[in-house]
């Protein structure tokens, strides 16, 4: 274990607009991201050359009543008869699809692979979405105890707060930061800062002739039950990633072929994946064992250390998850992640920029697409194409994609040479 038999490069990357789109189905979203990917390939190529599709998708079955999704996406993208395979590992479906695509190219089985992710979540009412997401936990022994998906991360938050003596405000700062980034991402579901939302709410109440709360700052707004209701304490609405429709695509090729497609390939130099128990069987609830192991595998394969990473997209399905991720990835010592976020170290201007895309929180979280969309952001950052949210000089990036509460985690490391 630990080495790829041959090098793999990303030569194209695309993402659909993320949001809630009544009229769009999975296939419409997928085609949108596919076209965006095709347009990103500098020297052009014939999509008919694609040999295989690895598709991350959590639950088109429950969300849309559609199983056997991979060949349908392949058909609508126009790449039949490429071998189309769907991967399901909850919210890590996209990261797992990426890893399978990498292994397929590295093995020599294929030279040209499409990695995709798609989820269409807004067909169902919120309660049904809550039930569907709860199916990613242990339905017999977690969901049955009344644990919702936000509830499980809320439990991690209470363990973290008790161990390190912090308050929910630390988590709120992660949400504020990710909304600041999302504002600069034209594909994001929420292109608004928490400050924008606060001012907007004040203006709306004033226009309605209602009393206007005296919110002093973003934290003041986020502490207010009426503005930011509790979902599962201590996680509130603005600690939770939204329900999102969206898709993402990456074009992977063998390293020796890369310059046929672009003079600026992004090389995948590290890949790791591991599994873990449900929460109640773990000895430590303030860290994800699968993330620590996947990270170690990826760092060892890449021959780099956490200090070398310039940009990282981590799995902030809930604000507490980002804090824990930054510790599991070795960016901060255990217990320091919350304080680092509060000090602005994970902002774009900080020494450790995290989730420049807006993260799952502001960019949106179409479950099976998220792991692929994270890689799209790193691709853009490493090529200097991230626009207003560009981190100067980013040459080494990382993605961290978690399934449920860490039952699955994948970590990937990317390099621009």
């Amino acid at each position: 274990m630990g080495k790829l038999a041959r090098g793999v490069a990303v030569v194209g990357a695309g993402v659909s607009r993320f949001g809630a789109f009544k009229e769009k189905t999975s296939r419409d979203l997928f085609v949108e991201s596919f076209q965006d990917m095709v347009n990103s390939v500098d020297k052009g190529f014939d999509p008919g050359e694609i040999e295989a599709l690895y598709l991350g998708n959590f639950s088109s079955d429950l969300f849309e009543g559609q199983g056997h999704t991979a060949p349908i996406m392949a058909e609508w993208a126009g790449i039949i008869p490429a071998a189309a395979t769907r991967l399901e590992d909850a919210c890590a479906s996209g990261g797992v699809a990426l890893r399978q695509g990498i292994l397929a190219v590295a093995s020599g089985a294929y030279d040209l692979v499409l990695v995709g992710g798609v989820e269409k979540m807004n067909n169902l009412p919120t309660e049904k979405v809550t039930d569907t997401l709860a199916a990613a936990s242990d339905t017999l022994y977690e969901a049955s105890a009344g644990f919702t998906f936000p509830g499980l991360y809320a439990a991690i938050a209470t363990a973290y707060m008790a161990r390190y003596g912090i308050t929910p405000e630390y988590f709120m700062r992660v949400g504020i930061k990710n909304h600041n980034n999302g504002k600069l991402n034209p594909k994001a579901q929420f292109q608004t800062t928490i400050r924008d939302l606060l001012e907007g709410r004040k203006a709306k109440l004033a226009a309605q002739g209602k009393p206007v709360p005296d919110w002093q700052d973003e934290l003041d707004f986020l502490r207010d039950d009426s503005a930011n209701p509790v979902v599962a304490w201590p996680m509130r609405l603005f600690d939770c990633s939204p329900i999102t429709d969206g898709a993402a695509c990456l074009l992977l090729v063998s390293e020796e072929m890369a310059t046929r497609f672009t003079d600026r390939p992004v090389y995948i130099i590290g890949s790791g994946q591991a599994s873990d128990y449900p929460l109640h069987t773990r000895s430590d609830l303030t860290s994800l064992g699968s993330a620590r192991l996947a990270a170690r595998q990826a760092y060892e394969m890449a021959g780099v250390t956490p200090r070398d990473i310039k940009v990282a997209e981590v799995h902030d399905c809930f604000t507490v998850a980002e804090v824990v991720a930054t510790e599991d990835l070795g960016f901060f010592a255990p217990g320091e992640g919350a304080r680092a976020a509060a000090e602005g170290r994970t902002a774009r201007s900080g020494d450790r920029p995290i989730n420049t895309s807006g993260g799952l929180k502001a960019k949106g979280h179409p479950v099976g697409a998220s792991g692929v969309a994270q890689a799209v952001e790193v691709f853009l950052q490493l090529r200097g194409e991230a626009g207003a949210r560009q981190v100067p000089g980013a040459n080494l990036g990382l993605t961290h994609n978690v399934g449920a509460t860490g039952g699955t985690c994948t970590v990937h490391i990317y390099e621009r040479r």
Partner: protein
Amino acid sequence: MFTRDAFVGWLQEKKLMGARCGKCGQVYLPPRPYCPSCRSSEMEWHELSGRGEVAAFTAVHVAPTFMEKQGFGRGKPYATAVVRLQEGPGISARLVGVDAARPEEIKVGTQVEVDFLEVEAEGGKQVDLAFRPAT
């Protein structure tokens, strides 16, 4: 048979039953038919003390549909927890005898004991696993 049905059956009799590996002695809650620790399937039923501590918890305000049917949700949260039992294993279960509307007063590390919660569910009354602060 060390199945979910058997575990739930014991709960209806207000017993917290796990499985103990006859070969290596490891105790499992919920019960299971195969010991991943020593790879044996010589399991036997083992009643747990029901005493432990809260390792983590939450107060759920946006409830799943089956809890909404029990009257919970917005304005009426319920608490649920990861409980670490004295015998070692942990389990997820409802946390009662606490004020779910004041979660800041619930503490990780609280000593708890098992409680058997009688609830109205589809198909009549049933007993669910819960814990409450120890007396």
